[in-house]
């Protein structure tokens, strides 16, 4: 509704009625809706099966038994979930501090090695996950570091840094650096400038960097798979072993809950998705 008014207002402004942007039928719209069906069909199937009474494939009547089992009888799943949450928040916080500071440094100052710092910050993003995972595994084995929560945390900070750096850097590029000079001229020291001027201005970039890091960390399977040890199962690792070693419909229920969670998370953000798409 809001959108349509906006479009009408824009048309009105220019005086000339703009041609209708969308026709009733077009090849591209058909392709779009086919893609949407393709993207959602598997998720709907999961949702449907999560209410199946029987353990096997065939439909055997409606039941919420798997949701009850998910909530009350899956302690190891909840342990994995809490591990995932700890790693996600911990690694996102550390990556945001490291990446944010580096972005401030490289966007405000020119110094020898600046290009190298930037290059190094982008590299982990380009490298295939399997290579990052395997190299960390070999590294930890070489220095006899026991695999577990700490190694997962280190790995997640490492792959999160580029995204935080990129997002904060993009934000800092947008605004006028003369404000910072003004702060300095008015007698603010470096600490005051950082906390009172740069931090508030960079906040949107920092927030989106942090959120991207949390999401990436919760999502990661491949790298975590290589650097995890006994007793450090994360949620993706738990789902993986459930898929490999005997599927339980509890995973259906869990998946349905996670899809609903994603929808609830993304829907309020729908008006920002365009900027997100531009940066992806």
């Amino acid at each position: 509704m809001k959108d349509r008014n906006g479009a009408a207002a824009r048309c009105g402004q220019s005086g000339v009625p703009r041609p209708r942007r969308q026709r009733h039928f077009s090849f591209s719209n058909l392709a779009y809706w086919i893609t949407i069906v393709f993207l959602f069909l598997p998720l709907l199937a999961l949702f449907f099966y999560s209410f199946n009474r029987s353990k096997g494939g065939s439909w055997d009547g409606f039941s919420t038994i798997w949701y009850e089992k998910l909530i009350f009888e899956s302690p190891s799943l909840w342990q994995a979930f809490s591990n995932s949450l700890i790693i996600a928040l911990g690694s996102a916080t550390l990556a945001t501090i490291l990446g944010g500071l580096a972005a401030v440094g490289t966007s405000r100052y020119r110094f020898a090695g600046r290009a190298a710092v930037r290059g190094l910050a982008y590299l982990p993003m380009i490298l295939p996950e399997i290579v990052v995972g395997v190299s960390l595994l070999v590294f930890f084995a070489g220095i006899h570091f026991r695999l577990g929560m700490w190694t997962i945390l280190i790995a997640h900070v490492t792959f999160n840094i580029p995204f935080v750096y990129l997002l904060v850097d993009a934000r800092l590029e947008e605004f006028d650096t003369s404000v910072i000079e003004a702060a300095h001229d008015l007698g603010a020291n470096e600490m005051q400038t950082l906390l009172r001027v740069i931090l508030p201005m960079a906040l949107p970039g920092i927030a989106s960097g942090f959120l991207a890091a949390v999401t990436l960390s919760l999502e990661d399977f491949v790298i975590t798979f290589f650097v995890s040890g006994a007793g450090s199962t994360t949620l993706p690792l738990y789902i993986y072993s459930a898929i490999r070693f005997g599927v339980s419909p509890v995973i259906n229920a869990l998946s349905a809950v996670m899809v609903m969670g994603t929808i609830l998370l993304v829907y309020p953000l729908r008006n920002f998705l365009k900027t997100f798409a531009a940066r992806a």
Partner: protein
Amino acid sequence: MRQRNYGPLYAAPQTAWLLLFFAAPLSIIVAYSFMQKDLYGGAKAVFSLEAYKSLANPAILKVAFRTLWVSLAATAVTLLLALPCGYSIARSRNQPMRLFLIIVPFWTNFLVRCYAWISILGNEGFLNDFLRWIGLTKEPVQFLYNQWAVILVLVYMYLPYAILPLFSTIDKFDFTLLEAARDLGASKFRAIKLVLMPNIRSGIITAVLFTFIPIFGAYAVPLLVGGKDSYMLGNIIADQVTKTKNWPLAASISVTVTLITAIAAMVYLASEKRAEAAAEKEAASIDNSENAGGSL
């Protein structure tokens, strides 16, 4: 007012972290790739090109070509679907809603999406259930654990990676140019080919690389929905590290995959630069002459 250069100080923690936990592990991999295989697994510190020579092993070459074929096929299908999709979202009146529908599956957990396909294509899955129900088959059909399942699921996983950059470049395109081409007598197809396509080139390249690079290093999808005949290079690396313990071989394959990825990324950066330069040139030519007719 003289001001200290705090740049290196700000950048130091991140750089130290990445040197220790990214550059050092990667260097170890490169070093291992030039070492000899140890009898009991791991690597012996003796220089050897054995690991690179064994890349020519027919078994590994076969997987390398399969990886290339699967990546190219999945990237092509993804692009063919993503182009009209991106166009449709860009042209839509309700862009936020259309983006929302693309992003929900995209942000759903990777393994959940894999699992969803397993529960559709599996022997006891939705599709077999349906085929039995309508009486077309009696015995379950094996849809999973082959190359086609791998390509299908890879397309599913990486489709949004292609749609989003395509959407954002098409969205910036000035559609009056397309109308002008139509007014001047071009057919719709010709107008799209000659006017739209060259202008969204950077988006197409981004989309191709965002799908090709991760698919080329794919590990989890072939592991979960592929069989022995659909192993990819990523799976061989993992097997050599965790099962066979031939670290030099795993390292040499990793180095090769990394180099191919790096070349792809450099091609991308070069084309970005060229696109930027072209855009600047175009902007300059518009500034210079009021009637910039030749900017296309």
